[in-house]
């Protein structure tokens, strides 16, 4: 009888960013503030 070689089904990859990445982005957003001064915009990272 013929042997049936089955290939492993590829793992269902969890395609999501890491929690650290998301939390970094949220913290970055909180830290970034834009200062308006005479029609000029300054970015400031307040950490």
């Amino acid at each position: 009888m013929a042997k049936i070689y089955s290939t492993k089904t590829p793992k269902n990859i969890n395609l999501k960013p890491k929690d650290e990445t998301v939390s970094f982005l949220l913290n970055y957003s909180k830290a970034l503030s834009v200062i308006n001064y005479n029609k000029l915009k300054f970015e400031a990272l307040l950490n």
Partner: protein
Amino acid sequence: MNKELIQDAELVSNYIQGNENALSILIERHKQRIYSFIYSKVYDRDITEDIFQDTFIKVIRTLKLGKYNEEGKFLPWVMRIAHNLVIDHFRKNSRMPKFDNAGEFSIFSVLSDSSLNAEKSIIKEQVEKDVRRIIEELPDDQKQVLMMRMYQDMSFKEISERTGVSINTALGRMRYALINMRKVIEQKNIVLTN
């Protein structure tokens, strides 16, 4: 579908007005699609993570600076940023090709660290010390030629001029010096390999 688009637009305007939580909802809502999109292009988790992060850094900065003007088209806009960053990534990599070391060919099988590790440098020191001791055993004329040739890197012509003997004599002394050293090494079973 329409409802969600309106919600996105609302969240974006809430975020611009200072509601940080709106961003968290937006990321949560779209992270999987954006991440999968990037992964489908680069096939590398770490690079995907980097590009995903850069994409949202760009999104955050644009929104905070008030430069966003595509109301109701938040996701396509983010996707376009991600797409551009993926292109940037490939452009950068084509300028600086990298070996990812994932295939059959491993770059590390060709490259090696030529500097000696601690053990090897101790052995090298020991070997050099032994060689010096053997040289000390040689007759003076042979020792002189060998030292000039090996340690002072002089040519046989220079050696003959310095010692006042012919080149052939200097060559002969060198030859006997080596023969005698080999004899001593053999007799005393000295191992001079690193």
